[in-house]
């Protein structure tokens, strides 16, 4: 053992010094570096984005309730070291002498908000700034709109319920204001200590209680496990940032899946490069193994020497990889510091663990087959150079590398679907390439017999080394395919995100527009040259029955008998709209849109798909709504898919206008006003004081900022994968150059002109590049189809341009790399070429 160790150490030391381990070391360093940098960065980014999403609910988790919850619940959270905060919200009239307004009243304790900040402003409608203060007892903070409606100023008093409170600040923003076009009452923030005195929470009032929780994720989860059995589905709702189904939540979730994908691809890339490097390492050691065996070394001794050596290489590779990976992501984090606020002070052990595991698994599993080959080299090779390893089983190699890749992907992602998709694409690629290889042999046989032109030589070489080339072809094609997948996914994803918020996205919503105001507003918009959207009629209706079955629209009050089992309602009034034109971004998935309704038929209604599923409503069902004192009965004639990610008003129920003939509608609409023209808003809306104006610029900015950050992070990952991919390509060309050395030396010695040899080698690489690119484009399309439809839930598009780009780029890149490699070789004179061969 001691002997094997010292011999292994000596071999390792000398080979490392002489640069003979560079390629395999680089491959391991690459795998560890890319996996570490990717996962470290994405971990940090995820943390940053999670924090960001937490701001939208002002906490890590929230418990909403219709009633105050028992004190023990909150005490239990505190005992577990979880921070808590509280908010009570209701809609309440606020008065100032003769002025009154309905307000969105929020009463909070001093701990609120646990995440995010409250913003105030000094002048109405100006941009807000953060404050650490909270409304004190006796104070109210009201927003600019309420300030206007009540005609008050800072220092004035307003009546809230039974008490008078002093306006202390102009409120600009709270983290969990929510975003609802229909719920746009101006906001009032006050201390929860004053609530009891106001008497506004008496019987009959609709009050919501929110309890906020922030702290260690595990603690919160275990707290929720404790709490869950005590919750009443009808009264309580638990919400965590993971449940975020908003546009932002979905973007972040998708970005996370992309990071996962990119990291998996980086692992495969690293694995491919280690496989190539290990093959080369093994071949270089055929002679030393034969010599050692000849000199009496047992199989066990040889095995020990090389396994120890591989361990040395792995350890060195992992150490360098961790250092480089850490520095790299540190650099990137510094570069992106302004755009993506990620914390760099925390050290995440998980990515380091993953990187080390990847390094070890890749290095050991991928060198297993080459090492087995190496161990099988017979001693007779010392006499006959043409004797190679006796173990040669491509199937065995595929089994080893295939299972290694799959194990790694499963370990890393814990996601069978995504792993299986990538694995299947890879397997398809390998299978087609092996088939292709045999085809090449056949085609080459016809070509390779006439003359020694550069193309003929190239073909002849490809044919002769078909099997060797197939390995090369596979590794080139896999590399190109992986790069394509990452590139296309990134492009499609960023494009889709940007489409969510195109330039000119409405940043103001108007509701409560009366029939008479509609005409005037249109004129005014045109006068002011403002881009406005359609006007949608709205009526509030209570959804009361499906067919003959009554449904509950109110939750049961405390102390009441539980309502009979049955269909759950919407819990509150629904907004009904009516139109004969299908709204943009809506798609009929069942039935037909009601644009050609005939008098005498039942009134048609179109329902949104998710709500239909939730309320178990099917096509042909008869729905009854109470609107004011009237009753409307309509039949479901179509089910719509609605893209909730667009910031457009959308409706669960759209009726035929006929059904609503007797109602005076109010309208909602939206418009876009550039930043530079924001000062015109009060002038623009001056004649329409009763119309509710809702400014969602802050929301849009937040959304856009997050999308930009995520896109930038995604782009960084793309660059990282591209760099990794290029390194792998270089390693592959380098490895294949060694194999070509002998042939080049012979051709050169025989006097073939350098230019002709060069062209033939370049042509060979060009052909390999084109084929690899084409195959990669095919496998790319296949895996994209599966990824986009199965994992990312995006619409699938064909990527025909890549069927051209991939082979061209493949030919160019592989050709250029090949040219550089062979230029270097051919600049050596014949004798040094021959010497290099020994």
């Amino acid at each position: 053992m001691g002997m094997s160790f010292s011999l292994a150490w000596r071999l390792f030391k000398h080979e490392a010094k002489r640069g003979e381990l560079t390629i395999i070391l680089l491959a391991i360093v690459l795998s560890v570096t890319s996996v570490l940098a990717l996962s470290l960065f994405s971990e940090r980014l995820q943390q940053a984005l999670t924090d960001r999403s937490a701001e939208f609910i002002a906490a890590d988790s929230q418990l909403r309730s219709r009633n105050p919850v028992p004190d023990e619940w909150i005490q239990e959270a505190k005992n577990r070291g979880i921070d808590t905060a509280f908010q009570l919200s209701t809609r309440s009239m606020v008065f100032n002498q003769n002025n009154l307004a309905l307000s969105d009243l929020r009463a909070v304790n001093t701990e609120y908000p646990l995440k995010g900040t409250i913003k105030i402003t000094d002048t109405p409608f100006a941009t807000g700034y953060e404050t650490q203060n909270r409304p004190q007892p006796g104070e109210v903070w009201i927003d600019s709109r309420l300030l206007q409606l009540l005609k008050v100023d800072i220092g004035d008093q307003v009546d809230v319920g039974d008490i008078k409170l002093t306006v202390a600040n102009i409120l600009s923003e709270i983290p969990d204001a929510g975003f609802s076009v229909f719920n746009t009452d101006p906001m009032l923030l006050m201390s929860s200590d004053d609530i009891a005195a106001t008497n506004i929470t008496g019987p009959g009032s609709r009050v919501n209680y929110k309890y906020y929780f922030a702290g260690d994720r595990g603690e919160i989860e275990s707290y929720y496990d404790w709490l869950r059995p005590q919750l009443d589905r009808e009264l309580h709702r638990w919400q965590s940032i993971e449940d975020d189904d908003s546009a932002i939540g979905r973007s972040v979730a998708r970005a996370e899946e992309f990071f996962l994908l990119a990291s998996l691809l980086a692992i495969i890339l690293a694995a491919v490069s280690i496989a190539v490097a290990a093959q080369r390492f093994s071949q270089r050691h055929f002679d030393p193994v034969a010599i050692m065996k000849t000199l009496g070394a047992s199989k066990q001794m040889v095995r020990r020497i090389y396994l120890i050596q591989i361990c040395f290489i792995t350890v060195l590779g992992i150490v360098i990889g961790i250092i480089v990976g850490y520095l790299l992501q540190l650099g990137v984090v510094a570069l992106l510091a302004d755009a993506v606020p990620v914390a760099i002070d925390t050290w995440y052990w998980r990515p380091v663990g993953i990187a080390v595991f990847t390094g070890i698994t890749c290095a050991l599993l991928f060198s297993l087959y080459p090492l087995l080959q190496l161990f099988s080299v017979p001693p007779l090779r010392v006499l006959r150079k043409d004797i190679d390893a006796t173990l040669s089983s491509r199937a065995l190699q595929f089994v080893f590398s295939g299972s290694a890749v799959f194990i790694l992907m499963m370990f890393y992602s814990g996601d069978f679907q995504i792993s299986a998709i990538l694995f299947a694409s890879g397997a398809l690629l390998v299978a087609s390439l092996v088939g292709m290889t045999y085809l090449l042999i056949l085609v080459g046989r016809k070509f390779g017999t006439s003359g020694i032109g550069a193309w003929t030589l190239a073909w002849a070489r490809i044919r002769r080394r078909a099997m060797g080339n197939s390995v090369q072809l596979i590794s080139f094609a896999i590399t190109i395919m992986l790069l394509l997948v990452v590139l296309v996914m990134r492009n499609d994803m960023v494009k889709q995100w940007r489409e969510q918020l195109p330039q000119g996205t409405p940043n103001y919503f108007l509701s409560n527009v009366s029939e008479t105001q509609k005409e005037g507003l249109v004129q005014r918009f045109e006068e002011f040259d403002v881009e406005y959207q359609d006007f949608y009629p709205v009526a509030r209706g209570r959804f009361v029955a499906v067919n003959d079955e009554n449904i509950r629209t109110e939750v049961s009050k405390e102390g009441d008998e539980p309502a009979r089992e049955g269909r759950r309602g919407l819990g509150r009034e629904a907004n009904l709209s009516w139109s004969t034109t299908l709204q943009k971004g809506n798609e009929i998935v069942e039935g037909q849109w009601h644009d050609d309704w005939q008098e005498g038929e039942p009134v048609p209604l179109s329902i949104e798909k998710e709500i239909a599923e939730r309320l178990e409503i099917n096509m042909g069902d008869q729905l009854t709504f109470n609107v004011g004192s009237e009753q409307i009965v309509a039949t479901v004639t179509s089910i719509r898919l609605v893209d909730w990610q667009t910031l457009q008003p959308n409706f669960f129920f759209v009726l035929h206008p006929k059904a609503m003939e007797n109602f005076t509608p109010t309208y909602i609409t939206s418009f876009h006003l550039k930043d530079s023209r924001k000062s015109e808003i009060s002038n623009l809306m001056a004649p329409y004081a009763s119309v509710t104006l809702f400014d969602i610029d802050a929301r849009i900015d937040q959304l856009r900022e997050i999308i930009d950050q995520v896109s930038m992070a995604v782009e960084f990952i793309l660059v990282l994968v591209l760099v990794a991919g290029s390194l792998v390509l270089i390693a592959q060309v380098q490895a294949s150059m060694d194999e070509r050395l002998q042939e080049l030396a012979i051709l050169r010695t025989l006097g073939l002109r350098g230019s002709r040899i060069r062209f033939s080698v370049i042509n060979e690489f060009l052909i390999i590049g084109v084929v690899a690119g084409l195959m990669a484009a095919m496998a790319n399309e296949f895996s994209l189809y599966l990824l986009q439809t199965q994992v990312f839930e995006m619409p699938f598009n064909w990527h025909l341009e890549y069927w051209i780009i991939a082979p061209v780029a493949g030919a160019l890149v592989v050709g250029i790399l090949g040219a550089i490699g062979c230029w270097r070789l051919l600049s050596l004179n014949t004798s040094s070429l021959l010497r290099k061969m020994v």
Partner: protein
Amino acid sequence: MSTTPTMIETKSLIKKVNTSEGSLQILQPISFEVKSGETIAIIGASGSGKSTLLGLLAGLDEVSGGHIFLDGEPLHEMDEEARARLRGEKVGFIFQSFMLVQSLTALENIMLPAEIAGMDNPKERAQKIIQQVGLEHRAHHFPNQLSGGEQQRVAIARAFITQPKILFADEPTGNLDSANSQKVEDLLFKMNDELQTTLVLVTHDNELAKRCQRQLNMNAGTLTEVTQPLKVIAGGE
């Protein structure tokens, strides 16, 4: 002479290889003996089967039939592991292409067989023997930093470090110019003499072959003892 123990003995040794056109017998039944301390040369044209025979005698290859005894041990019955042990204990090698481990220094290459055999103080032994081949100043050079002649001297030192009973040399001067050839030959025979090693030398160089006590000619897989002066045979080719 008859009291001298036999170092190598073959009986009806044959070797067959499988080719695409079926089985091909490349060694006809060969029977001969080499006494301990004897030096023999196996001569013959390229492709006559010299190296194949050497590979079998040295236990690098498996026989297809017949018997080989090396220092009384039945090589033909042994598996690769047992043969490796035997080689490590009793056999030294010198090759035409030197066969040094490129990533070990001259000194480390010389140490290698001693280490594999588990001998004590391999480094001291190697330092002593490298002086005998006159390369102590090149001890820490790598093979590719040495000339062909120097590399072969390292190989000779490596072959003798374990004081093997038998030394197999395959065209030891085949890759060297005449000046270096002479030096290497002299060194080889001098050290062989000193250690009384049995030498089996494969060569097509008649001059070199003549320095051995016996010469055997390999022709189309058949081995015959050369009884006439070598020049005649060389002239007759």
